């Protein structure tokens, strides 16, 4: 881990070390998360950052809220009913996405640490944070009002983000040799399926 100097976690300088990235680095890391060809964690661990871990899920929240309300508006305009918007969709998105990223990411950290790997909290959270990035283009595409198309897009998003997350978690888990903690990977997969279903049914479902 990068040296934290003489500052404790209560000083802002401590956290500033996790924001020591340039725009170029963030773009590169986001690209590696969306197109999981090369190893994300190798690039990330050279210089861990929290910018993407926070702002990528926030952008996903915003993108899903905008596209969901847009498709709701289009659907109601086509059907001729009066336009009513649902503000609770924003609060629901905030709760869902932040909970998923930080709770499941934290669970990965806790479980792998308990079973003897040496995970970093920042890298576990970043896998989940950056892993949300694929949902931004998917949610834009899901504005098109064809249900089969939306299911297809959601499947693509599930595949890409799931593959990225599983491969990164596997990389973390494989640092020690125990077999037991490979059991958490089906759990994470189940959590991911749940998230994707929630996305589809709540946000991508207006016809």
């Amino acid at each position, binding site marked *: 881990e990068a040296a934290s100097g003489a500052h404790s976690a209560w000083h*802002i300088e401590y*956290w*500033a070390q*996790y*924001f*020591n*990235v*340039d*725009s*170029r680095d*963030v773009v590169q890391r986001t690209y590696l998360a969306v197109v999981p060809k090369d190893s994300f964690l190798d690039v990330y661990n050279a210089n861990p950052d929290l*910018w993407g871990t926070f*702002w990528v899920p*926030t*952008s996903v929240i*915003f993108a899903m*809220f*905008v596209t969901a*309300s847009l498709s709701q*508006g289009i659907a109601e305009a086509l059907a001729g009913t009066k336009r*009513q*918007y*649902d*503000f*609770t969709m*924003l*609060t629901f998105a905030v709760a869902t996405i932040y909970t998923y990223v930080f709770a499941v990411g934290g669970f990965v950290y806790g479980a792998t640490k308990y079973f003897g790997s040496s995970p970093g909290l920042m890298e576990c959270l970043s896998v989940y944070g950056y892993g949300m990035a694929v949902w931004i283009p998917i949610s834009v595409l899901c504005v098109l009002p064809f249900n089969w198309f939306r299911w297809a897009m959601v499947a693509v998003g599930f595949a890409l983000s799931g593959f990225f997350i599983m491969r990164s978690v596997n990389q973390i888990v494989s640092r020690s040799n125990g077999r037991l903690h490979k059991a958490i990977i089906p759990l994470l997969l189940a959590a991911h399926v749940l998230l994707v279903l929630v996305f589809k049914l709540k946000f991508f479902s207006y016809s």
Partner: protein
Amino acid sequence: MMSRPEQLIDEDDGFGLDSPFGSGGAQAKRPDLSGSLGGRIGDERGAGAAAGPQRTYTSGALPGGHHSNTLDEPILTTIGRDFGKVGRKTIQVLYPKGRDNALQEWDLWGPLFFCLSLAVIMSFLAPDQQASAVFTGVFALVCIGSCVVTLNCKLLGGHVSFFQSVCTLGYCISPMAIASLVCLLAHRIVVTLPVVAVAVGWSISASIGFLAGAQLANRRLLAVYPICLFYICIGWIIIIS
């Protein structure tokens, strides 16, 4: 009603509240703001409402060059000065020509006012059963959002003061508040969409102008992007109402 001739020294100044005057401070001619709430604490003869003449002191007239004693001035002057400051800062945001630097000293009255008015207007525009949720949501979004965006800028190494940045972001909400008022009055999408788009662009460019002094070398995008996200999010909520 007592009539006070043009006295330079008031014997009643002895309650210790305006000690800089001592025994010989020259005082300016007192403007007579009849009907205002002026008066002094402890002035036993002027106990009736708006009975006495009002007094204002100019700093040039005081011995030793003390600041003017704002404790004795009429309340309207005090309030007027604060409103003047808020108004000057708002104009600085809305018409940033020249280096007025009104935003150097921060205050949170203006941001609170714009945040509240935006939240109230949005709750009027919302469907009835969601009105309070919308009010809470918009208010929380603006408050927490400006703090988070400021924190992000500071963490990236920018040289901004926390409260000054929060103050600027709050003042830059003013075009959005005006746009939401327009949307309240004219419910048609053909009006709201361009008005909100213009307001969003205005807010973003005003706050980026402020950020220019923060010295972020390769990270400008990382600091500017959350600001854009913040204002576009608010703008979107206005549009879909």
